[in-house]
C-alpha cells in the first residue's frame, strides 16, 4: 500500500514530486520550512535553460489553462496534496514502509483561504508583508518580532478576519509509507574566503543576491544600484569558483554557477545599457547544451579573465579596486568596479544533516548520497527513502524535475 508519502522541501523537486504523485492518486504531505513554496527558484528572475521567469515555465506543461496558475491550482486545490508551510520534521521513527513522523508547525497567523491580499495590513504595519508577488500560498506573511499595538489594531480590522495573532505552534504525528528528501541547497555565504572580502563591504555580493537585484519585481525594480550608496552601477565584476573546488571549503564543482553567472552577465549586457561586465574564472564549465550562454556572453561584449583575484580594496568613492592575475597574459590587471559578485558554492540546506542522521543515510560532501547498489537513476537513498533535486548535490532545474519524476516512478512501483 503506497501512501501517504512525506515530501520534505517544497522547491522545484519537492513540488514536482508532490504534484505528480497526487495526480497519480497518492496522498502526499508536502512539508516546507519557510512560509512560501518555491525554494531558491522563487528568488530567480530568469531561470536557465529557457530564460523564462521561473514561475511561468515550470510545472506540468500538459496541464490545461495558464501555466502561471499551476501552483495555485495544484498546491492549494489538488485534494491529494496536504501542503504544510512553516513546518519542520522533528523526528522520524518506525520502519521502512511505515515511518512515524513528527512535524512541528510554526504559526502563519494568516489564513490563506481568507486572505484576499487587499493590502490593508501591509500598508499600515511593517509586521505584515507579501514575501514575493509569486509566493504560494498567496497570502501575507507575518514577522512576529515586529508585532506591536498598531499591528494588533490592523489585525482586528482585517475585512475577512484572516489574521489570528494568537495562533500558537502545533505538532502533528503521521504515519507515512515513503519519504522523499527534497531539501535543496543553500548558497554558501563566503565570509570564510578572505581574499574576496564578502561581508566587509556592501558592494561585494553573491549571485543569488544579484538575482534579487535584477528582479523587476524586486526593491529597485530591476535597476542595478550600488548597495553602499544607491548610485547607479556602471561596472560589474563576477568571480567564479568561490568556495567550490576547494579542499578548504567544498571539494566539488557546484556545477550550475558558471551558467548562472553567464545568464546574469547576459541579462546585464543585453538589458542594462552601458554596464560593463567582466567574469574572472579558472574554467568556464558550461556543461550539456549551455555552451550557447558562453558564446552569447562573449558576443555581447562580456569580458572574460582567466585568473584569480589578488586583492580587493574599497575606495572612498564607493568603488572597489580589484587586482586580478591574468594567467593567459601572465600580467596583473587592475579594475575599478561598482559591484563585485561572487559565484559562491552550493551547500546542503539547513536540516539536511539531521535528516541524514535520523534516517541513517549516506552522506556525500554533506548532501544525501544515493545507495550504491540502488537504481541506475540514483534517487534511492535507503529503503523507502528517496532523494531528488539539489538535496543530492548541485543540479539545474530540468535535472531536479527529472529526478523528482524518477522518484515518483519508483514510489508508484512500490517503493523499490
Amino acid at each position: 500500500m503506497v501512501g501517504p508519502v512525506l515530501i520534505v522541501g517544497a522547491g522545484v523537486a519537492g513540488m514536482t514530486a508532490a504534484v505528480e504523485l497526487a495526480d497519480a492518486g497518492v496522498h502526499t504531505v508536502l512539508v516546507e520550512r519557510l512560509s512560501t513554496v518555491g525554494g531558491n527558484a522563487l528568488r530567480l528572475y530568469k531561470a536557465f535553460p529557457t530564460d523564462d521567469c521561473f514561475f511561468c515555465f515550470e510545472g506540468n506543461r500538459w496541464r490545461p489553462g495558464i501555466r502561471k496558475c499551476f501552483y495555485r491550482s495544484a498546491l492549494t486545490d489538488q485534494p491529494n496534496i496536504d501542503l504544510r508551510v512553516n513546518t519542520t520534521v522533528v523526528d522520524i521513527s518506525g520502519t521502512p514502509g511505515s515511518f512515524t513522523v513528527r512535524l512541528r508547525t510554526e504559526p502563519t497567523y494568516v489564513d490563506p483561504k481568507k486572505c484576499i491580499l487587499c493590502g490593508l495590513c501591509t500598508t499600515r504595519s511593517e509586521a505584515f508583508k507579501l514575501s514575493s508577488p509569486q509566493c504560494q500560498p498567496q497570502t501575507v506573511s507575518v514577522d512576529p518580532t515586529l508585532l506591536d499595538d498598531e499591528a494588533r489594531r490592523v489585525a482586528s480590522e482585517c475585512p475577512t478576519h484572516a489574521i489570528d495573532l494568537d495562533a500558537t505552534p502545533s505538532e502533528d504525528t503521521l504515519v507515512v509509507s515513503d519519504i522523499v528528501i527534497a531539501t535543496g541547497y543553500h548558497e554558501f555565504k563566503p565570509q570564510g574566503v578572505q581574499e574576496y572580502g564578502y561581508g566587509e563591504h556592501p558592494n561585494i555580493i553573491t549571485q543569488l543576491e544579484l538575482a534579487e537585484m535584477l528582479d523587476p519585481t524586486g526593491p529597485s525594480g530591476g535597476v542595478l544600484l550600488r548597495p553602499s550608496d544607491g548610485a547607479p552601477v556602471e561596472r560589474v565584476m563576477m568571480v567564479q569558483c568561490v568556495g567550490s573546488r576547494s579542499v578548504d571549503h567544498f571539494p566539488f564543482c557546484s556545477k550550475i554557477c558558471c551558467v548562472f553567472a553567464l545568464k546574469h552577465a547576459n541579462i546585464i549586457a543585453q538589458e542594462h545599457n552601458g554596464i560593463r561586465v567582466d567574469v574572472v574564472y579558472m574554467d568556464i564549465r558550461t556543461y550539456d547544451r549551455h555552451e550557447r550562454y558562453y558564446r552569447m556572453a562573449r558576443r555581447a561584449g562580456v569580458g572574460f579573465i582567466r585568473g584569480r583575484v589578488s586583492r580587493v580594496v574599497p575606495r572612498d568613492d564607493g568603488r572597489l579596486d580589484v587586482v586580478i592575475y591574468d594567467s593567459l597574459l601572465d600580467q596583473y590587471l587592475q579594475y575599478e568596479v561598482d559591484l563585485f559578485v561572487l559565484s559562491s558554492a552550493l551547500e546542503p540546506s539547513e536540516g539536511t544533516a539531521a535528516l541524514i542522521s535520523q534516517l541513517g543515510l549516506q552522506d556525500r560532501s554533506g548532501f544525501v548520497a544515493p545507495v550504491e547498489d540502488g537504481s541506475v537513476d540514483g534517487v534511492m537513498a535507503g529503503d523507502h527513502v528517496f532523494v531528488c533535486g539539489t538535496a543530492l548535490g548541485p543540479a539545474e532545474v530540468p535535472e531536479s524535475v527529472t529526478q523528482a519524476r524518477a522518484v515518483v516512478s519508483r514510489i508508484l512501483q512500490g517503493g523499490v
Partner: protein
Amino acid sequence: MSEAGEHSTTPVTLVDPIDISTLDPHFRNEIRSMPNGDDLYACFACTTCTAACPIACQWTYKPHQLIRMILLGMRNEVLSSKEIWECLTCFQCQERCPQGVRVTDIIFDCKNLAAEEGLVPENILGLGRQLLESGQLYQVTADWEREDLGLEPEVPGLDPEPMKAILHGTRTGRLVGGGD
C-alpha cells in the same frame, strides 16, 4: 564594512598591475569593425592558435595573448609589437580555431592599423622601398642556375616598370614615403 586603509584582507604586495582604465576600450570594436574582425569576440582563449603556430615559441606575445590584448584594449602594445610583423601568415591558427576567429586576418588588420600610425618596423619599410624602387622584391639575375636549366639570361617579358608606377600610387607608396 571598512575603509580603504583598514581593509583586513588586503595584503601588501609588490604587484604593479596594468590599470584597465588607461587602456583603450574601443580598440576591440575598432578591430571588430574591420572586414575580418567580426568573430573576434568568440575567442575563449583555448590557445589552439598558439599550439598551431610554427613561430610563436619565439614570441613574447603568443597569438592567443594578442587576441586577449585586443579584447582588453592594449592598443599600443599590440600595434607596436614585433609579433604582428613576424607572423608567417601560414593561416594554421585560423584554420584550427574552434570558434571561427580569423586570427591571421586579425593580425593583418592590426598591421594595417599599425601602418596607418607609422608603426611599421624599419626592415619591413626597407622591403617596401625596394618594391617601390625596383618593382620587385627579388632581382632575377643572369646567373649559373638559369644557365644550368637552359634558360635565357633575362626573364622573358619581365618588366617591373608598370609595377613601380602602380605602387607609387598605392598605400605602399605613401607608407614608405615614396608615393603621392
